[in-house]
């Protein structure tokens, strides 16, 4: 609030200057908080680009994983393939199930205690640490099947994504006006048809944008994958046979290494991962911007 807002008669009251000074200090502090948060963001992204760009080239992006951490050669090809496969499979599992779950909560369960409870638990489930999901898949899948593979990693990521997709879907369905449902039902459509043909299409852009953000977060997860996907030095395009690897796992492994060559690879993989994640995020923003424009 600036001085010239027609309350000047208050200026005469005692303490006015002090109060204004206090408010100005608070305002400066508030702006400062934002600036403080910008600094690490700029530093991290800047440094990852600076270190990563000097490592990345075609050989690095397609090469096999170095057999020895101190070897100066070696790439992250298998990890890029692994990340795309594992995240892709997780998306294929979590998005349809999450959308269906959101549909149940909002279209079928609305008003019931059970639906409110499931919705609440989905919220709580978004807070379950990713390492716990990794341990869950390790104890529930890996110990029973006695093998580590990409699919186990996909299951762990899907468990992380599921509640996010459910909640996004539910919130987007809430934005669809009831009149559209009523019109469809009045024309004789059954509920399933109404949902699939009328309600869901109206909510799709919002759901897609939310799902892409969930994918972006899942692609960057390390902890759920560490114990369940095993390991590979060469590209493994199978989700079910043999171990696999992923970009975050490579970054972690190389970051924990004492050798400079390995640390260089960690920066290169970090830049690759960030670019990948940003692409998903930007795609989500574009979809949601289009959505907003369509809604007017």
């Amino acid at each position, binding site marked *: 609030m600036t001085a010239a807002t027609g309350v000047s008669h208050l200026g005469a009251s005692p303490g006015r200057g002090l109060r204004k000074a206090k*408010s100005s200090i608070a305002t400066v502090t508030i702006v400062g*908080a934002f600036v403080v948060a910008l600094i690490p963001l700029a530093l*991290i992204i800047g440094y990852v680009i600076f270190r990563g760009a000097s490592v990345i080239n075609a050989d690095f992006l397609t090469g096999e994983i170095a057999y020895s951490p101190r070897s100066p050669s070696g790439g992250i090809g298998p990890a890029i393939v692994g990340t795309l496969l594992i995240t892709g499979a997780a998306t294929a599992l979590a998005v349809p199930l999450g959308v269906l779950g959101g549909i149940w909560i909002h279209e079928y369960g609305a008003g019931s205690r059970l639906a409110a409870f499931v919705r609440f638990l989905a919220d709580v489930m978004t807070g379950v640490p990713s390492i716990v999901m990794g341990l*869950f898949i390790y104890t529930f899948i890996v110990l029973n099947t006695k093998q580590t593979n990409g699919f186990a990693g996909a299951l762990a990521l899907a468990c992380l994504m599921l509640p996010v997709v*459910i909640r996004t879907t539910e919130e987007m369905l809430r934005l669809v006006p009831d009149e559209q449902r009523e019109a469809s039902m009045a024309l004789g459509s059954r*509920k399933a048809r109404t949902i699939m043909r009328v309600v869901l299409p109206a909510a799709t852009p919002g759901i897609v944008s939310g799902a892409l953000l969930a994918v972006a977060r899942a692609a960057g997860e*390390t902890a759920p994958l560490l114990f369940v996907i095993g390991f590979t030095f060469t590209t493994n395009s199978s989700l079910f046979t043999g171990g696999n690897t992923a970009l975050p796992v490579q970054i972690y492994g190389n970051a924990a290494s004492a050798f400079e060559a390995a640390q260089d690879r960690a920066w290169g993989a970090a830049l690759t991962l960030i670019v990948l994640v940003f692409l998903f995020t930007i795609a989500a923003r574009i979809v949601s911007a289009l959505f907003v424009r369509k809604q007017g």
Partner: protein
Amino acid sequence: MALDLQPPPTRPSAPRLADERPPGIVVDTAFRWLAFAAGMLVLVILGLILYSTTEQAWPAFQAEGIDFLIKNDWNPAAGSYGALSFVFGTLLISVIALLIAVPISLGIALFVTEVAPSWLRRPVITVIDLLATIPSVVFGLWGAYVFAPWVLPRYEDLANAFSGVPVLGTLFNGTPVSARSFMTAGIILAIMVIPIVTSITREVFATTPAAQKEGAMALGATRWEMIRGAVFPHARSGITSAVLIGLGRAIGETIAVVLLIGSLPNKITAELFSPGDSMASVIVSQFGEASGTHRSALIGLGVLLFIITLIVGVIARGLIARSDRKLGLAR
């Protein structure tokens, strides 16, 4: 939304006319059941997590009993698994993280809702959300190789400056060789929880009725007085739940912490610059070489993490739901 209020899918909403040859009723019913099953998946998964991890952790729980929680003696070679130091480490780094992150997050949220001109709001939100998309392993990498080397001399300066001073001398002590410590892990964690705390408090602040804010201003309040008098009282439970959700994030964060905390078990100290270990970080750093009861004890730490974050999450979400109801936003 109010079309169909009947609870679970026992009956398809079949019109009476469809008795003889119900076109599409099979699909309709199947779809309803499919959706129901997907909704129940949340319950099933949460139940399975608890069951499956507890089952594997049971040998360790049985061997240690309550000592698992209250004894500070983690020594796999001697078969001793008292995990108190990890609980301590988790709490310490979470508290450091929240002490730093909450004021900054509140500031950013106020900046967006009360201070920034409207054209700047969207970009600010985007930038903070961008912070949330950086993978935690990248925070760990940056923290370990850029932030830690930079901050080490600062730690040493602080330790020297405050040595001998009663409380601060202890807090700012324990200078580690590599700066990997409770403090470093806490600071990086703070950066990581800022986006989530900001986004929740921002939403809460945004629901302050305009009439109350305008009323305060009309009575001659300065902006800060308006924030204190109209925005904060309105947002109290929202802020609490944002802090709790941030706490849940901090407690469960794994990869960044394992790269930054120094991985030193059995360290319970008030010296913030000392290396230590947290529940999540010790799971990752020891799981690979662990077997038998050791592995079982690490899974037990996972069970503990799960239960703690569930409790924190339930309280936080409960508070949000309550404040929504209070505002008439019941869903």
